[in-house]
């Protein structure tokens, strides 16, 4: 992480785009979140890490309103979540995009149609503009041009992820939710996604909520990292602070064999 970027983006005076207060999620006997608090600031890339089953995806789904939490308050863009969702239902003011873990592309539409779908639903834009627009998004996320006319079933896993990202970007969101964007990608492609996210953040002022296990991504682009464990956010902060946090799982995660390799690479560089 470059020092200038970390100085700008850890500025704590920024407004919060997401505020989660006292979130409780319980499925029957299974308590996932208990009194969880989390803030995401405008223009930052927040990485969310945690062991399997600590509720990373559940947190994401609660914030975007796909899952009604058992208790707790969530506000987006300074408004209560309910208000934002009500606008969504009317198709107005689409301000966030979500990329699901396996893309969740509409299987009966081509990649291009997947991207165009929401735009042509909500805006009256001619096909003359829609076509180059979708081409641009496709090459922006690093998909080859010919993939535009392919159906999701004939894409590889990595390509599906990219297409999912292109679709999440279709409505020009200010806030982007990504569920494991680089998992299952080769290192070169994963690096490409990292670069793209950083460029979009820097140029569009995008805020990114990123669930990931990719230590390279955490090092390369995340401004702050939130560690989920014991039903809440254990600690939030820049990577070097979080890595020092005294908790067995955190230590295991950042100082285990995989973590050490990456850390040493970055300190050498």
């Amino acid at each position, binding site marked *: 992480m470059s020092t200038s970027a970390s100085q700008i983006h850890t500025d704590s005076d920024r407004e919060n785009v997401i505020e989660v207060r006292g979130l409780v999620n319980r499925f029957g006997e299974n308590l996932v979140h208990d009194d969880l608090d989390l803030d995401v600031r405008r223009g930052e890339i927040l990485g969310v890490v945690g062991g399997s089953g600590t509720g990373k995806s559940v947190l994401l789904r609660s914030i975007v309103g796909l899952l009604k939490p058992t208790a707790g308050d969530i506000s987006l863009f300074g408004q209560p979540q309910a208000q934002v969702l009500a606008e969504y239902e009317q198709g107005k003011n689409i301000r966030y995009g979500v990329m699901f873990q396996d893309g969740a592309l509409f*299987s*009966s539409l081509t990649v291009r149609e997947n991207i165009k779908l929401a735009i042509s639903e909500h805006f009256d834009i001619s096909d*003359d503009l829609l076509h180059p627009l979708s*081409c641009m998004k496709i090459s*922006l996320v690093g998909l080859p041009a010919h993939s535009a006319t392919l159906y999701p079933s004939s894409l590889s896993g990595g390509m599906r992820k990219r297409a999912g990202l292109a679709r999440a970007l279709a*409505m*020009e969101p200010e806030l982007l939710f990504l569920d494991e964007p680089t998992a299952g990608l080769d290192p070169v492609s994963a690096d490409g996604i990292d670069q793209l996210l950083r460029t979009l953040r*820097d140029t569009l002022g995008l805020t990114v909520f990123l669930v990931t296990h990719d230590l390279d991504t955490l090092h390369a682009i995340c401004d702050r990292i939130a560690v989920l464990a014991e039903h809440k956010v254990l600690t939030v902060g820049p990577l070097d602070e979080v890595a020092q946090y005294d908790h067995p799982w955190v230590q295991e995660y950042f100082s285990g064999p995989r973590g050490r390799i990456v850390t040493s690479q970055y300190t050498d560089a």
Partner: protein
Amino acid sequence: MTKPGIKMQAGDSGYEALISGDWTLPFAAGLEQQISVARKYSPDTTGKLNLSDLKSLDTTGGLLLLRLLGGVTPDGLAEKLIGTSSNHLLLLRTICEALQQESHPRRPKSQGIDKMFDRTGRWAVDTWTQVRVLLHFVGVVIVTTVRNLLQPWRMRWTSLVYHIEHVGLDAVPIVSLLSFLVGGVIAFLGATILRDFGAQIYTVELVGYAFFREFGVLLPAILLAGRSGSAFTAQIGSMKSNEELDALKTLGMDPICVLVMPRVVALLIMLPMLSFGSMMMGLIGGGVVSALILDISPGMFAARIYEYTSINHFWVGICKAPVFAFMIAIVGCLEGFKVTGSAESVGRHTTSSVVQSIFLVLVADSMFAVFFEQLGI
């Protein structure tokens, strides 16, 4: 949000376009028109853009700005722009680079006579392939069935019982109700027509013949084609699109053995049973109507069925049941295996499974009718 605008003015070399406001997706439709007007006003590509009044910019707006500028390379971008912030320049550069990669041409729509021949040819080849695939599948299932019968411990008993319950037991109420109603309707028909000849007593034979020979089997077969055949296709199809079938194979399990066999055997067992139930309910329906409007008492009805309706009619009907069951199960499972990836494909094959199995059942039934007629049974 401020409305975006373009103002053209003469610059040092060519035109200079003053860009203002928010160049974002919600304004794209209006901007597109403004750009085409501006491009007409100054069609050359020597102009520059003055971005000092530009408020916010997203990728859609960026694309429109580049369109206004005409052809430009990422390296030549900076000198075409005046008063741009570094963020906007970076974004425009990223978009420009993305556009540099060859874009996929729109597929030209071909029309006319050659297209018609093309479709006909494809249809013919496709139909022939489908028939061969069906025959191949029938062969594979029969071989697997025989092998399984020789090794009964390899049969999936749990799965078989599950399907017997879902295919057979759960269908009993609907099959019974429907047969009862159809039995009543046939008795009505008989009553109306035969009364003119003073032969209303033959209504009993009419209901008996109809249900033993035809309806007792056809009704449950058509119901199961809609109820279970479609379920088989949807179950196997969604497993196929989720790569679960491939997963089974890699675990050394044969999808035919694990998925198809229990379904085929369950239908083979249950359709004859349902047919028997349907025959009984049809007779009861006919009996009730006869008692109510023809004054044929239930005892008389039963006695006449017993004395004047040969048991051969029952055998003619019931021997068709396993054949229909096999057809429905085979078509249902095979259509499931034909599913490719998408959810739409699951839907299409489910429809096709129901249509095909009902079609096959009716064709087979009419062939049976001719066959038994020739035998004089």
